[in-house]
């Protein structure tokens, strides 16, 4: 009798443990699963059977509008539809109230549905500028809000969508920057959250396409939080580009000694092989501007003439014409500081003719 009970309990326990193990497996698979990125129109070549026309997209839009709700399957089909061409995107964007249903799902209580909705919006953002503007007006604030959330896949999908929008429409970019996008992106770029690369892409797009809309507060935030970015972390090759393009080092923004020292250390870290060409070019520009501030106390290790000459010789030896011009400017700014004996510095330089 007792042994029968023990066997039953054992079976029950074994089943429970099996159940837990299965759940964990599924959960790990869901977490580890990566999304496949694909360009507009490429899906036709990949999977011809999934072809969706304007009629299908319009029908689907009417259905979700009627129900005021979209299931994961609807969102998935719409996503595939948008991937197939600009006509589908324009047809959907032209239906009043259709994007609002996506926004409703985006702001619902379930993370998976939110992710499906953002992925759908990501594919919708492959469209033209007017579509991007519409997405930002209706859903931009939520995507920016989710950047502070815990769900990593949701965050990444938001970053992908925002990157598409920033690259497409200047007006949409301006609205996004008003939603305090830059500080949030900088925080993601500095954190070890796994989104550094995507955040760096967004920041570089801001620096390239929306420079005129970046506010002084955004610049001050980055200047104050420069040391949060660790040189060993991913996407370090974007750092100097972002700092230079956003004019973090200039007369208007007071750069503290700690921040300036950090910049010099980051620059020294980029010199270590294998050196990235763009990091070097923009690093030299940032250093030239740092020296142009006219305060030797901000130059850290570069204030030492021997150290400066060694660095300059190392960089002149690369014989890169883009780099050499900026190096000359850095040298001139340094000599104008009168921080060291000019003759000594000039005599020690090894610049290839």
């Amino acid at each position, binding site marked *: 009798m007792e042994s029968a009970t023990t066997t039953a309990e054992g079976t029950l326990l074994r089943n429970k443990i099996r159940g837990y193990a299965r759940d964990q497996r599924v959960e790990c698979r869901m977490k580890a699963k990566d999304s496949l990125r694909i360009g507009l129109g490429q899906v036709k070549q990949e999977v011809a059977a999934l072809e969706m026309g304007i009629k299908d997209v319009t029908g689907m839009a009417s259905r979700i509008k009627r129900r005021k709700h979209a299931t994961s399957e609807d969102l*998935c089909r719409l996503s595939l539809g948008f991937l197939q061409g600009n006509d589908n995107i324009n047809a959907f964007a032209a239906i009043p109230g259709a994007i609002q249903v996506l926004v409703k799902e985006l702001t619902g209580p379930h993370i998976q549905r939110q992710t499906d909705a953002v992925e759908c919006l990501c594919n919708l953002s492959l469209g033209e500028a007017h579509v991007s503007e519409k997405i930002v007006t209706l859903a931009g604030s939520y995507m920016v809000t989710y950047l502070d959330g815990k769900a990593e896949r949701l965050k990444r999908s938001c970053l992908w969508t925002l990157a598409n929008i920033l690259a497409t429409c200047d007006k949409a970019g301006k609205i996004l920057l008003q939603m305090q996008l830059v500080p949030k992106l900088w925080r993601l770029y500095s954190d070890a959250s796994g989104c550094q690369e995507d955040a760096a892409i967004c920041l570089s797009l801001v620096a390239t396409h929306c420079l005129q809309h970046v506010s002084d507060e955004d610049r001050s935030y980055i200047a104050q939080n420069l040391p949060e970015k660790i040189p060993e972390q991913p996407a370090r090759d974007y750092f100097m580009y972002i700092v230079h393009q956003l004019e973090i080092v200039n007369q208007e923004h007071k750069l503290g000694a700690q921040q300036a020292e950090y910049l010099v250390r980051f620059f020294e870290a980029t010199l270590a092989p294998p050196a990235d060409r763009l990091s070097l070019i923009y690093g030299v520009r940032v250093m030239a501007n740092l020296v142009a501030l006219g305060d030797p106390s901000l130059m850290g290790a570069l204030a030492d003439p021997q150290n400066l000459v060694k660095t300059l010789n190392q960089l002149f030896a690369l014989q890169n014409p883009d780099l050499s011009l900026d190096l000359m400017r850095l040298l001139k700014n340094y000599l104008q500081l009168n921080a060291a004996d000019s003759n000594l510095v000039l005599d020690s330089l090894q*610049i290839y003719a």
Partner: protein
Amino acid sequence: MDAEAAESAYLSREQIVRILSEVPAGFIKPTDPPAPSLHPFKKLGVLVDIDDVVGDQDEAVRIRDNRDKEQSYSCAECRKMLPTAHLLDLHITEQHDCYFAASVERGDKPMFSCFLEECTIKFHTPRQRKDHCIITHKLPANYRFDQGKNRGKQKHQPKSKHNSMEVDEVPVESRNLPYVKAFSFGHQTHRTFYSRKDQRSGETLDDVEAMKEAINDILD
């Protein structure tokens, strides 16, 4: 000999000075050429696997619920789930903090923080905050994570209340009193309206009609 050859390959001090005199000093602007661009950005979408969506639904729902709990910030008091720590912070302060409520009532300093964590401005009323968010941060007027107390109440008010006429509130106890037949002092009750019917008058269309008929009878 090699060292000498290398020496001759370098620019002399005079040459460097000459080049430096031609180079401008000062800040390098982002627009200054030559500005090599980063790797060109290509817009990309997401290819969703439809099989994942049309999979085992029960399993997916169970796992999804677990994920929702794990990846959201939930209020210990009312179980409300919010996407960010800042929004949860605002929720707890504004909805469950008596000290906050008292401070708002006193009204000597602004208490309502902006929905965006990076914005440090505070406001006296949720209305002012909402206006600020709409005008400055371009948030939508119906921002879903706006948890002003009035917003929730308005949503749950019955529709009929908005349309109904303003009337005096009848105390609940009086509504539940049992019907007591009216007294009569030597006169027949049929001269008056039937009081049992009167009590319910106005509630339904039938009663209104009956009342009209009775009035017409008296007038005739």
